[in-house]
């Protein structure tokens, strides 16, 4: 496992092309995500470095999941840049969910700049084993 760790390569942060028709000032970035499906739920992880738990907004409306993270900027107080390799900004991304999700049971946590979302499926969307009876 750890023996074959590959070297990490950077990804250029991608700016949001056009977050709907909203007047959002400044640059917005698209968070990278992993989405895995389990029998009972979907799980999503989104990289949002610089965002604290209280500054994340997750909504699910009409099958569209929206993630919005506001980046903390106080750490830059009194600092003058001399060399930079990345820019900072808030994060925004939307997903159309095909699975039926029980909104009331969505759980979100932030850990080390990564949003973890658990999206439990509604009962009717869970896979069910169908017994095949011998005739």
């Amino acid at each position, binding site marked *: *496992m*750890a023996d074959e*760790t*590959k*070297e*990490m*390569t*950077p*990804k250029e942060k991608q700016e949001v092309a056009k977050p709907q028709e909203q007047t959002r*000032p*400044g*640059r917005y970035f698209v968070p*990278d*995500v*992993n*989405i*895995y*499906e*389990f*029998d009972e739920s*979907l*799980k999503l*992880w989104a*990289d*949002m*470095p*610089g*965002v*604290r738990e209280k500054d994340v907004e997750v909504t699910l409306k009409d099958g569209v999941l929206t993630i919005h993270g506001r980046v*903390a*900027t*106080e*750490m*830059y*107080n*009194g*600092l*003058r*840049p*001399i*060399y*930079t*390799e*990345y*820019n*900072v*900004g*808030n994060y925004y991304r939307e997903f159309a969910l095909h699975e039926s999700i029980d909104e009331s049971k969505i759980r979100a946590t*932030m*850990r*080390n*700049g*990564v949003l973890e979302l658990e999206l439990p499926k509604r009962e009717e969307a869970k896979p069910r084993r169908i017994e095949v009876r011998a005739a």
Partner: protein
Amino acid sequence: MALLRFDSSLDPIDAMLSLQNELARFMRNPSFGSGLSGVGAYPPVNIFESDEGAMVIIEAPGLDPSKLNITGQGRTLTIAGERSFSPNGHGRGYHRRELNEGSFSRSIQLPEDYDVNRAEARYEAGMLQIKVPRSEHARPRQIAVQTV
């Protein structure tokens, strides 16, 4: 020339815009004389100055802080770590897999005015902040004028 300084007490929108402009202005600043290993390598590094010293701010979400290794030698800071992703549970496959995984190591050579041996690091919300104080001999000193 006025030295622009970021100030978050500004209106939040103005603060964000001025920060973004400042960061864009110094993007891969060629006049920054210090040596950086692997420009364009992971993780991306921003370097700032303040009255107290230098501040290196690295964007690296999801690291295991116990596997983060920061060393200072001479004028060089080296940051190494790794990130692994392994969801628990019985998965039925994935829809997206974009998160970065693996190990990294990067070195930053700071100008002589900074004292790498007194550096302090903190990892919060996926941002690694390393504060490197100015060396004693590089601090501005008030020089008293004696009257004869």
